[in-house]
């Protein structure tokens, strides 16, 4: 399955500055593996301990994959996979 992946600014160091790259796979996990084979190191920014990093949002088309099986979420030919770092913070922690 060939898909297009939208890459956020903070991860473009892995893609030579490209904001959109091609990848293939039938699940989000396979797409990330394929991405990592072409853009070394990107997987480590997205996946932690076998699941999606808590502060990374991944969408297949308009669907947040968190509600569609996470890394196991299916992707289809022509889908757009969007990666967005969550915007989060707060005063907790002090």
């Amino acid at each position, binding site marked *: 399955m060939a898909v297009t992946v939208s890459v956020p600014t903070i991860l473009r160091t892995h893609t030579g500055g490209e904001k959109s790259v091609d990848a293939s796979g039938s699940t989000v996990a396979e797409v990330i593996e394929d991405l990592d084979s072409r853009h070394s190191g990107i997987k480590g920014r997205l996946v932690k301990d076998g699941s999606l990093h808590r*502060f990374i949002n991944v969408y297949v088309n308009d669907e947040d994959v968190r509600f569609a099986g996470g890394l196991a979420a299916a992707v289809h030919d022509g889908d757009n996979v969007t990666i967005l770092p969550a915007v989060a*913070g*707060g005063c*907790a*922690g*002090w």
Partner: protein
Amino acid sequence: MLMIRRDLVDAMVGHARRDHPDEACGVVAGPVGSDRPERLIEMINAERSPTFYRFDAAEQLRVWRAMDAADEEPVVIYHSHTATEAYPSRTDTSYASQPDAHYVLVSTRDPDTHELRSYRIIDGAVTEEPVEVVESYMFSHTGADDVPDAP
């Protein structure tokens, strides 16, 4: 330095006051590369918490797509601290993911006066920067590419 219009500052402070004691959060978008905040978007705090904020993921996708389509980027990312000073917490610095953005903090802990400060957060390192509040970018010294405010 962050140069920002007074009406945008007023809008951020107003949002923070309205959502107090929960943390309020949002974005001010501007043309890519301009460093000029222009369009304020109040975001839902999906956490609805006095100590934590997180943009709602579905709303964030819509807003980010709209910015992309308009050749905009998040120039300012703001949120409020409702019981502590306007300084980034460890939580803020560890989740900061937009090295090009100005992170603006509004503290509403004092009911009468607010505190508004701006930071760059790059690879977990926090640098405070001065904030210049202006009436209009048109008459400010923002460089040769200065353009009038959008109507």
